[in-house]
């Protein structure tokens, strides 16, 4: 009965591959759990109120990351203030105004290219261009301008995606009752695309918080409390990641783990926030 369909064929190769597939997926989860678990295990004991509410003091030999938190916030705010309008504007041009062709391909290619350039190159460019040429030196503003270029592709792309989901009928509807194009974009298109744009902004915050190589030679590594809130952007200021890097160069691993813990909390919060937002976006679409 060699012709019977009742003979189960043995496929050892299939079994091996299937086991490998499960093992790799398991490994990915294990890596994440291991990383987060170890950072919490080593970082949580370091965290206390002084750690996050004071500046480090060489005199008293204490360590705190408040200035780094403040510097990180400064960089996030300045970077987003510049990059968000440019990114949205660029996406609006690509999606609503341009009619394809060479120029659009050029813009899309350069946007892709920007997202592929490593942080360290942005760092070098920022140091030479914003730091030396524009004479900003090592300053928070110099770092923020550098990061502006770096996160521009994220904002442009997420906004473009969001604009693409706005139904064509909204556009023809608005234009059909005599609205001008800009009026239509301002009142119909942008509000509909808002959740997508906000997601892009949050993703950018995640990228900025985690960035280090692009900031090392642009924003500098100072860890002093701001003396003047207005002129602070012109002074050198190390973010959380930079302080973590400095702690590692001095082999102060406890401090590094404390900062790593704070960073992981921020990353988890940002991830959760984008999840919630995109879920709400889906709900809106269903209505």
């Amino acid at each position, binding site marked *: 009965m060699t012709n*019977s*369909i*009742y*003979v*189960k*064929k043995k496929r050892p190769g299939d079994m091996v591959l299937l086991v490998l597939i499960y093992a790799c997926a398991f490994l990915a989860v294990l890596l994440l759990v291991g990383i987060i678990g170890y950072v919490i295990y080593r970082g949580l004991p370091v965290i206390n109120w002084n750690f996050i509410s004071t500046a480090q003091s060489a005199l008293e030999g204490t360590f705190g990351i408040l200035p780094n938190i403040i510097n990180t916030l400064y960089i996030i705010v300045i970077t987003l203030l510049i990059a968000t309008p440019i990114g949205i504007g660029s996406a609006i041009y690509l999606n609503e105004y341009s009619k394809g062709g060479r120029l659009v391909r050029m813009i899309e290619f350069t946007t892709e290219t920007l997202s592929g350039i490593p942080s360290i190159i942005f760092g070098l460019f920022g140091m030479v261009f914003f730091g030396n040429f524009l004479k900003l030196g090592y300053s928070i503003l110099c770092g923020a301008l550098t990061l502006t270029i770096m996160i521009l592709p994220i904002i442009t792309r997420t906004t473009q995606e969001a604009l693409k989901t706005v139904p064509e009928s909204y556009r023809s509807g608005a234009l059909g009752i005599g609205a001008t194009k800009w009026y239509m974009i301002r009142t119909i298109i942008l509000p509909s695309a808002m959740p997508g744009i906000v997601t892009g902004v949050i993703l950018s915050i995640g990228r900025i918080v985690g960035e280090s190589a692009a900031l090392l030679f642009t924003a500098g590594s100072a860890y002093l409390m701001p003396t003047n809130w207005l002129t602070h952007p012109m002074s050198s200021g190390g973010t959380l990641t930079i302080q973590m890097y400095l702690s590692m160069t001095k082999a102060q691993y406890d401090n590094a783990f404390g900062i790593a813990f704070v960073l992981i909390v921020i990353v988890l919060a940002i991830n959760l926030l984008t999840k919630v937002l995109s879920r709400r976006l889906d709900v809106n679409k269903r209505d």
Partner: protein
Amino acid sequence: MNQQTKIHVEHLNLHYGTNHALKDVNMDISEHKITAFIGPSGCGKSTFLKTLNRMNDLIPNVKIDGTVLLDGEDIYSPKVDTTLLRKKIGMVFQQPNPFPMSVYDNIAYGPRIHGIRSKVKLDEIVEKSLRDAAIFDEVKDRLKKSALGLSGGQQQRLCIARALAVEPEVLLMDEPTSALDPISTLKIEELMEELKHKYTVAIVTHNMQQATRIADYTAFFLVGEMIEFGTTEQIFSMPKDQRTEDYITGRFG
């Protein structure tokens, strides 16, 4: 029926979730004959075809009960290896769907899957399958080129050749000509007449003329029920059921 029965179907029921899609279907499909399934869209004829090689297994929430015997063996038995079953019962789909590979690799795919490695043997199978599907002369100079460059009709005959290459005993065809032009359709119908000498063919068609042209037996389906089954001549000339008559005379569907 005095012919040899190839597939015997008894009390077959199929549920998609809460939808009762096939209701107590009974049928004998004869060897070396063409059996056509006709009926309006959504009547369950395609679903029924797919129960014969267990392609419905791939859809979640499908529940099947009843018996389908292939040469006396229950294809829904837990002992069955579905890959062997599908090797014996080949299938051609509504849309021509060659793999994004060369013509040669498309045909050799099945034999390779089933363990044939010898280049000489594969060459032989490829040529024979293409000849059997009446497409060899059209593609013999471009065996190494992508199959996606062929016309729709050629692609469908290529898919038939691909199904033949694993030497099936039964060929299931799910509206194989509905996406094709009349000339390609004619070629495939002629091909089916040839194929029935070697294989048992079951075809789903939305085209009643096609059924009268090629089928030896015809089954009429309506909302999940098999209303009537008989020789094509009998079904189209003197249907026993009023609903069959209404359908073939074009009163609905």
